[in-house]
């Protein structure tokens, strides 16, 4: 079953505005990761937040994690046309009782930033 679900499915904003994407999940996690995928390309890792962290920043990105609500949000400030892409959250859990991890991805948010 799908672990992460993202909201909204699509977001359209103007350059300079902030974009907020939300992710909810169902089971306990080790960490939560956000990835970006430009059209026709592979996924690129943006940020990893561990289950004992509440907030993390990287450049124009801010990620929050609320383990009590099983949710996370990704905020992109001062968006640019180049931020246009699909954004995925992925939850890291133990793989089948092993000490190895696996990622379960949400269906993503399609962000369009208009110049």
């Amino acid at each position, binding site marked *: 079953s799908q672990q992460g679900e993202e909201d909204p499915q699509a977001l359209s904003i103007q350059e300079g505005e902030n974009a907020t994407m939300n992710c909810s999940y169902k089971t306990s996690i080790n960490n939560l990761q956000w990835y970006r995928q430009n059209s026709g390309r592979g996924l690129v890792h943006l940020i990893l937040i561990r289950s004992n962290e509440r907030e993390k920043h990287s450049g124009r990105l801010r990620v929050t994690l609320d383990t009590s609500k099983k949710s996370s949000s990704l905020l992109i400030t001062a968006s640019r046309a180049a931020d246009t892409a699909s954004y995925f959250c992925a939850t890291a859990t133990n793989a089948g009782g092993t000490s190895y*991890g696996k990622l379960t991805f949400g269906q993503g948010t399609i962000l369009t930033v208009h110049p």
Partner: protein
Amino acid sequence: DTAVSQTPKYLVTQMGNDKSIKCEQNLGHDTMYWYKQDSKKFLKIMFSYNNKELIINETVPNRFSPKSPDKAHLNLHINSLELGDSAVYFCASSLGQGSLAYEQYFGPGTRLTVT
């Protein structure tokens, strides 16, 4: 230098054929993965290998057989291709024991079309 590379980038073939996709990473990572991304962009893990040992096998049909000749390579062979196998297949790699601590690095993807 490309960190995670896949060949071929595009693969068009007929039902019933057998095909292979190759993946190589030059990051020195211990863990490699295969993912399938469907037409709705849903990304699902198929297999994971750590240092040539199979770690994750996510209920994938037996027609799919991964092979890891060394820890830098993870190939995917698909027998008796079906229409439903049409998707984009991504290879990825990560340090250590995978996503419990580390992010994943993705290849550019192989778009498989079965006619």
